[in-house]
Each structure stands twice: as structure tokens, then as C-alpha cells.
């Protein structure tokens, strides 16, 4: 199995704060990796750096073996790495359909035309298919600012998938979503993702959700990765229990809930 995303000595400081310290990460094609860690541990900073939004202070980032250091986010997306956001980043005054249409025209790779309509039957059909996959069809013509949080998160992720990325980074996909709906959301997303053979990395706080879908967990603390490996060993790791999950997590029960 080959490496799809690799970081070498990735570091980021904000003045005196070390948000990321010499991160060495190697994600292989097809993996589903869970990222855990308390708030401020550096998980979002990691995603921001790897997707080109935040320049690292030092270190290198390789996607498919090629360095993407210094590349803009739009180039990295075009190369095949997409992401979703902790707070869904959508176009509030546009409808859900229009949001998808924008994502679709962007994925086509050419500059948007100033003559041809955005809203074409072909794009509409593709958008409708995506909405069906994600179960948000009834919100199709609603303004994004009016739809529920869970739907927004789904649309956010759907838009990232439109460009058929080879790797998808999800930043807290279930945050802000009620506990009953968390599993439904993740089931939907992971079903779509598995269909297209996408490598996935997602940040999550709910251990049951993490355990249910991943083959590997990376635990962040204070800008460093304190454990990286199969769920059982990471969740049972003393440091992880100290700094991330707490000592009372019933590891067996959580892992027993996996497939």
C-alpha cells in the first residue's frame, strides 16, 4: 500500500504557542484514520496546514509523494485532497442547490463562464443524485441559512466530495449535531466514501463514533501525536487515557461496538 499523505517534521508556532511540533505522519491509500485529542491539541491546525490554508513554520507535506508545501488550497483540492469544516463553510444566502451547483462548476476545472448558465440540467441531475445519497433532497431549494445544523454539515461534506477527491479530511463532522443523528450522519458519509474508495481522515470527539469506522487512530496532545496505531492500543495507551479519553473509558465496550 502506498502513501497518500505524508508530513515530515511539520511544525507551526504562533509566537510562543507551539500548535504543531515536528509532526511525522504517514497515511496510506484506503485507510480510514480517526484523529482524537482535546480542544487546542492541534488537530485543526494540522488539517489547515496540510490543505494549504495555513503555512507551516517548518517541515514538509507530501501528497502522493509530491511536496505540496507552499501550494494554495485550491491547487491542493485540484490535486485530489478535499476537506470539510468544523463550522460548515457554505454560502448562506444561496440555496442548497445553488451551493452544490457552485461546487460542481468548480469541480469541472475550467473558469466559470460568463455566458452559460450555472444551472444546467446536467449539473442539476448530478446535484440531485448527491442530495439523494446524503438524504437532504427535501432541503434542495431552501436557503442554507435556514436549514438545520445537521443538514448543513452534510452539505458541507457533500460539496467536498463533488470533486471526487482521493483523500477526504473531515473536521469534526458530527459537531453540533444531536447524539441521535450522529450515527446516521456518519453512516451516510462513510457509505458514500466507501463507494468511491476515498482515503479518509476525520477528527472526532465521540469515541464510539471513532471506534465504529476506523482502522487506525492518531491521538494529539499539545501539538504532538502521542499515539498512532490500531484503536485498541491507542485507546488503551496510558498517555492517551491521561490526556484525551480519561481513565474511565470502557475500551472493550467501545471497541465491541465496532463491526
Amino acid at each position: 500500500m502506498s502513501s497518500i499523505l505524508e508530513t515530515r517534521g511539520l511544525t507551526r508556532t504562533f509566537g510562543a504557542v507551539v500548535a504543531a511540533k515536528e509532526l511525522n505522519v504517514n497515511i496510506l491509500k484506503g485507510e480510514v484514520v480517526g484523529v482524537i485529542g482535546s480542544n487546542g491539541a492541534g488537530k485543526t491546525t494540522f488539517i489547515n496546514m496540510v490543505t494549504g490554508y495555513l503555512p507551516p513554520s517548518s517541515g514538509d507535506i507530501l501528497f502522493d509523494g509530491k511536496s505540496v508545501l507552499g501550494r494554495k488550497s485550491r491547487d491542493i483540492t485540484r490535486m485530489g485532497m478535499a476537506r470539510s469544516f468544523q463550522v460548515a463553510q457554505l454560502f448562506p444566502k444561496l440555496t442548497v442547490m445553488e451551493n452544490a451547483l457552485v461546487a460542481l462548476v468548480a469541480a469541472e476545472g475550467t473558469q466559470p463562464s460568463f455566458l452559460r448558465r450555472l444551472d444546467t440540467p446536467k449539473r442539476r441531475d448530478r446535484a440531485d443524485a448527491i442530495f439523494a445519497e446524503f438524504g437532504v433532497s427535501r432541503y434542495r431549494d431552501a436557503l442554507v441559512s435556514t436549514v438545520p445544523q445537521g443538514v448543513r454539515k452534510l452539505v458541507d461534506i457533500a460539496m467536498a466530495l463533488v470533486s471526487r477527491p482521493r483523500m477526504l479530511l473531515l473536521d469534526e463532522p458530527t459537531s453540533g449535531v444531536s447524539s441521535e443523528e450522529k450515527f446516521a450522519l456518519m453512516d451516510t458519509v462513510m457509505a458514500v466514501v466507501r463507494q468511491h474508495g476515498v482515503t479518509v481522515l476525520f477528527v472526532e470527539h465521540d469515541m464510539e463514533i471513532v471506534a465504529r469506522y476506523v482502522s487506525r487512530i492518531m491521538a494529539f496532545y499539545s501539538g504532538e501525536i502521542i499515539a498512532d496505531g490500531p484503536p485498541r492500543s491507542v485507546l488503551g495507551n496510558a498517555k492517551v487515557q491521561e490526556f484525551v479519553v480519561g481513565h474511565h473509558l470502557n475500551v472493550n465496550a467501545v471497541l465491541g461496538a465496532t463491526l
Partner: protein
Amino acid sequence: MLFAKLSASATTPALLLMAAIFAASAWVMPAWLAFLLTLAFSKALVVLGVVIQMRAGLVSFGQALFYCVGGYGVGLASQYLGVSDAFALLALGTLAAIVLALICGWLLTRYRDIFYAMLTLALSMILYGILVKSSALGSTDGFNVSPPSFLGWVPEGDAIKRTLYLLTVGVSAIVALGFHSFMVSGLGRVTEAVRENEIRVEYLGLSPQRMLFANYVLAAGLSALGGGLTAMASGHIDPDMAFWTTSGEFVFIAILGGTGHVAAPFIGAIVFSVIRTFAIQEAPNTWQMTLGVILLALVLFLPKGLWSLVERSKKREASA
């Protein structure tokens, strides 16, 4: 929703109908009205330039720059290059503006919000300063623009103003139809997305800057058209065309009309011209104050402009 769909598709025939009505009235309306409408429609073209940038989330406080370049382009080509054909003159003025926009836009589209607003203002004031100091270009007096010819035909007397009016109506109609289609085009809608969330557009694989640049150049071209038409209709150009208060009027009309529909700037420009004619007659020393008070009232109570009243009444009819 059905009603909205109906009215959206009714826009094109409605625009054509209005254009036809305005054009046909040329022979029956009084000369002063035709002149007022000529100037109003020309202004509306510049306002469309402001609206294009507003839809991108940017306010241009210096659109008068391109209005002035368009006007001076026409004036200079007529005076010094001996060009007399109206279409050629307009093309030259617009071309000059586009070249300038290609240069300035590269720098300007790196900025947003108040920086963008004030930098556009600064650029227009630089032009103003250059024109005022340039005696070759007539300095503060500017100079006159002789009436143009139209593909060989030289109108005389009343026909001059009438032909210019018809030209302006024609250009406005074409531009309006073009803008209507632009609003729902790929670039038009994605530009709105840039306004809503630039970072997401970047993450989707597009360059927000490039889109804003395209809008900037398009707006410049339209504004130059408006400036050129004004120059021909009023027969005069001067540096005030680039002064910041002129830009302010364009912003005012854009806010007055609203940015939601192509007809809005035209309606706004007509309303503005009417108010202005009365105000300058009745109370010349309080014209600025009147503008200021109305502008305040608009942004506080009717931020989407007069067009939002039309939309509200449409919604009421649709739900009734």
C-alpha cells in the same frame, strides 16, 4: 415560487418591451425629457458597474474613474484623432477603460472591504488630480465634444439629441439583456459565492481573485460606456467626472435601486435624476444634505433598495 419563476422568465420580454416603448417615445416626448433620460440611462450603466462589484461583496467608491476615462476617451478621440463615428468613439473609450482596469485590477483585487473602497477612491482622485493639472486637456474647464456621426449619417438640429437618446436606449437594452444573463451565468453566480464565503470558493478549487478581477474589468467597461454616452449627449467633459462626489452618486443610486434585478439601476437612476432636478431648483444649497439624509434612511430602513419593495409586493401577491 411559481410566480418567481414566471417573472424571472418574463424579464427578457419585459426588457425588450420597455426598450421598444422608450425608443418609440423618442418622437413624442419633449426634448428636455429625452435629454434627462439619456443622461439617466448613461448613469445607470455606470451604476451597473457598481452593482456588479456589490454582488461580489465589494463597494467601489471610485467608479467615476472609468466613467471619466470613457468620457475623455470619446472627447479626446473626437478632438485629436478626428474620429467622429459614435460607435467608434464608444469603442475607443471603452477600450481605454478596459486596458486601465486590467492594470489596476491586478492590484486592487488583492484587497477587500474598506481597503478596496478607499483604494478605488484614491485611484479616481489621482485621475482627477492629473486632469486638473493638465492644461493640454483643458484643466478644470475640460473641453467640448462635438456631436458624433452615426455610420456615416450626420444628424442635424433636433435629430442630434433624438439619435443620441435612441443610441443610449439601444446600448442600455443590450447591456441590460447581457447583465440579466450574466447574473445567472457561471461567473455571475460563483461571484456571489465569493461574496458569501471566499474561503470555501478557494477550497472548491477556484481562484476568488480571478473572479473579482473579471468583475472589475467588466464593471470598468460598462462604466466607460456610460461615460462615453454622457460625453456625447452633454457635449462636454471635465475633470469633475472623476471627482469623488460623482462616484458617490453612483453608489447612492446603486443602493437606491438595489442589486437584485437588472432594472433596478435604471429605475434608481431615473428616480435620482427627477429628485435632483427638483432639489436643485427648489433648494440648491441643500442638495448634498438631501442626498445624505435619503442615503441614511435607505441603508437603515431599506438596505436592499427600492427593488425590495417590488419584491415584497410580488411576494404578497404570490401568497394571496
